[in-house]
């Protein structure tokens, strides 16, 4: 009896389906998603990070450098620098990271999250177009995962970005009100562990 129960559980777990089955394939359309690619000089965000019971707050500065690479620097309010990342056309570089955050898993997650907002390494040649009743889904494959950029049905507003494996939605980034070429507010929620980031633009 127990073995039967165990087998049933394995079968049910194994049959877990994609959370995106409600989508229908759409015909290829103009890559309107490209119009949302961030274009900015310098943007400053008031930032809060909650990670497994710990709370960090500070300022996130994102700048386009003269060579068009992007620098992302996070300091606390009193000026202590936590990290300085560089996104270039040829790669990602950690310019500085505080000892307490210098862990591969943390850096990779931050690189992925911030990179998605910046459209980092997004190739417009390999897009899967789908739609729901009210939204357009632009799927970009990334290894075993897929990143969806989701707009309203007229492709006038970029509403959110989702990251998913074949069977599970892993992360959602909600975006609101583009200002100075970047969203005014960004809320990053990880669904498989407690790691949330909220960003709100600061007028300087």
């Amino acid at each position: 009896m127990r073995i039967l129960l165990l087998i049933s559980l394995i079968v049910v777990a194994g049959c877990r389906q994609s959370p995106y089955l409600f989508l229908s394939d759409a015909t290829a359309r103009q890559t309107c998603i490209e119009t949302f690619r961030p274009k900015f000089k310098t943007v400053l965000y008031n930032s809060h990070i909650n990670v497994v019971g710990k709370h960090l707050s500070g300022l996130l500065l994102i700048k386009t450098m003269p060579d068009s690479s992007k620098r992302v620097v996070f300091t606390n309010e009193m000026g202590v620098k936590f990290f300085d990342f560089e996104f270039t056309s040829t790669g990602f570089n950690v310019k500085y990271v505080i000892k307490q955050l210098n862990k591969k898993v943390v850096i990779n997650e931050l690189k992925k999250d911030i990179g998605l907002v910046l459209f980092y390494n997004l190739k417009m040649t390999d897009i899967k177009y789908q739609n729901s009743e009210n939204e357009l889904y632009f799927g970009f494959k990334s290894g075993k995962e897929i990143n969806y950029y989701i707009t309203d049905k007229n492709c006038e507003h970029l509403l959110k970005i989702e990251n998913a494996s074949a069977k599970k939605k892993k992360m959602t980034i909600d975006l609101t009100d583009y200002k100075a070429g970047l969203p005014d507010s960004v809320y990053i929620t990880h669904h498989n562990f407690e790691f949330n980031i909220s960003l709100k633009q600061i007028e300087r």
Partner: protein
Amino acid sequence: MIKKYLLLVLFNAFVMAISAQPKGFTALPANNDFSVRLADAAKRTQTINSDFIQEKNLNVLSETITSKGTFKFKKTDKVRMEYTTPFSYLLVINGDKVMIKDSQKSNSFSSRSNKLFTVINNIVIDCVQGTALDNKDFTAKVFKNEKMYLLQLEPVKKELKEYFNHISLYLDIKDCSVLKIDMEEPTGDNTVINFINKKLNGTIPDADFTVN
């Protein structure tokens, strides 16, 4: 030949002596009264109430992040630093208790539980209380010009050297009160805090330093 060599050594020594001195400042003579003046000023200072302007300079990025707020100190170990523009952030130090409040969350803890915070706590208190010369975490050099003393603090311990090359305290030559703090990081970035509209020894209620 020896003469030439001697001249070269002397010239190098001269250049090194000049370059070790911050621009616009001269070293204090050996028999100076700085430590007595500093201790005397600390004795007289019961409270400080001031505004501040903080500039975080990200030098490689040619960017400066400017913020403003109010600073309060009450003898012997109470500090309230409140950022009001362009974000709200509050730091209260009351003895070994610390409270940090940002726009989302408030967090209280003992500074003893956090080694870096103990050091930062000591720096803040030392800066405003004039006890920086006695802090064993740093070696101190003192310079002056007509308006200011410059107290240059260099960290001794490895864990502090990761955060600071040195911390420069600029003190008013008249009353030894702190005008400016400049914290230089190994990455070339620095944070400057200018204290303005300073009032000494006014009344500040203890309630301003409550840690919940």
